[in-house]
């Protein structure tokens, strides 16, 4: 659940990039940080965790409107996948408002994607949320590698593997080239804000 900062009249919500190791979560955030410089407040925090990096920065969405007259500020995070980082994961995933699941299109990564999605489901449940209730957008990343002759899964197959039950919006992306990154984030923010609006209405 988002934090209503009464002092600043801002709603702070959390969007987390989740996915198997080396799938491009960090690349996604680095691209956003570079491409949307104007909408970013403060520095990007980058913590080196074993085998992965944890990133964090604040993002001010433009043109998405207000909730109850309050501005919305989005905190973007990646979360380290390794089991040992439970304290970090707990801090990041507790009260998460939206998730971007980044799946790796490489054929050899098929199982890793599915494991990671299971893992997300388990973790969200542990922190009192559900993968079906949390606004979720999927991203099939590394599509650009098809041009280099690297075997990729077809989009249909990935949707079948990962999205059959969830039925959430998905995008073909190349975080490395920046293709589809903005679209994914925009869609996730849209869903997150809709869900926030709904929560606010229920609260009345």
């Amino acid at each position, binding site marked *: 659940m988002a*934090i209503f*900062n009464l*002092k*600043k009249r801002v709603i*702070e919500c959390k969007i987390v990039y989740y996915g198997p190791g080396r799938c491009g979560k960090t690349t996604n955030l680095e691209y956003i940080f570079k491409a949307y410089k104007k909408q970013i407040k*403060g*520095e990007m*925090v980058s*913590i080196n*965790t*074993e085998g992965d990096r*944890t990133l*964090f920065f604040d993002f001010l969405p433009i043109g998405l409107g207000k909730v109850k007259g309050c501005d919305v500020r989005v905190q973007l995070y990646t979360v*380290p996948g390794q089991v*040992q*980082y*439970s*304290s*970090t994961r*707990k*801090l990041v995933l*507790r009260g998460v408002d939206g998730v971007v699941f980044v799946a790796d299109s490489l054929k050899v990564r098929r199982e890793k994607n599915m494991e990671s999605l299971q893992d997300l489901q388990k973790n969200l449940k542990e922190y009192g949320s559900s993968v079906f209730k949390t606004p979720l957008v999927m991203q099939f990343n590394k599509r650009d590698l098809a041009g280099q002759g690297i075997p990729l899964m077809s989009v249909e197959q990935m949707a079948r593997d990962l999205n059959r039950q969830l039925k959430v919006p998905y995008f073909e992306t190349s975080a490395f080239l920046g293709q589809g990154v903005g679209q994914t984030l925009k869609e996730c923010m849209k869903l997150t804000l809709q869900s926030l609006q709904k929560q606010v209405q229920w609260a009345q």
Partner: protein
Amino acid sequence: MEKQAALAGKLNFIHLGDLLQLLGSNGSTGRLEVTSRYVQNAATVFIENGNPVDACAGELTGLPALFALFGWTEAAFAFFPEFHRHPREIQRSRMEIILDGLRMLDDGKTPKVGPVSFLKAARQDDDKQRAVPLIRGPLVDYMYVVDEENFVRGETIALEGSHGNWLWVVLEGVVDMIKDTPQGPVTLLKIGDGGFLGSLESFFRQGKSRRATVIAASDVQLGVLDAQRLSNEYALMSVNFRDLMLSLDSRLKKVSSRAAAAFQAPDEMAEGLRDMKVLIPQSSADGRVFCIEKGEALVCRETPTGFLRFARLGPGEIIGCLPFLNAGHEPHSAGVFASPNIELRELDPIGLADEFHRLSTTMRNILNNIATSISVTTMLTCDWNCRVKQEEPIREQP
């Protein structure tokens, strides 16, 4: 405290990371005091407009002090909103400190301050690095220490099976609790500052044998506890409470033997539970406490691989919900099965809790130490059991 705190609570309820975020989004300015009963002096974090600017904890100052505080999971905090012009020793952003602090905690770089922490065991085989839990206690009450004894690293303090009735408290250093198994000795626990050594049974009944070997893992100073004083206190307790104490002690003994057995081979569950009925289901909200008059009870935990038994209890032993002692057993984390001929006597849980809170600090610490040891040893049993089970199929493959 000279001034009323604006916000106070426990760090095991709201973690330091969450607390710093809360103070941060509120843009608060003031002083955050953190106190832990496992550390002599309080720690302070200075916060200006929601950002930590300086900290001190023991001999550490600045950022290292703030990082060290992430390990203080069993501590209380109080925030005093007041303005100090404090030199800005910490330059990093709030979120960076929180994320990095948590990472260091998860990486094991920041030691945990509390009754249990984990030391990575020396690398035996490459990836089978096993964490040996370290149990500590709160600050020692010197009124109960009659003598001090020093042991050098590697020296044997007590030998499993030998007779002895000293009860010690660790004043400084770490000792290993080792149990013999056919596969060789296995270190079950490490006991650090404030932890207790010796069985209550050996103390109140003369000439009992030691249940584990104790070896100094570092240079150690032990305090010999005042036997006279403790037995006087024991004599004044109600019969039920005395039963409870001995029952806890005996449960620890049984749980340790189970752990040593689990280290060698996974548990064969099917036999033990036949003809037994459920007495207290696992994770039930049953708040009753019983003393076994006749028959047998079995404390088990349901795991994905089946039931895992921890202790077989007989007449005179206590089962049920004891909220003032966290032993990690029934009713929340284990269930109790009973033999058909079981006869129970119900005890008054409120009376027991009252009596517990009236005990001297040392006696209370001893009981807490036993409960923590039971809970940690139980956890090890589960780990070992799972590990042995997981390893088995791999061995069979060509």
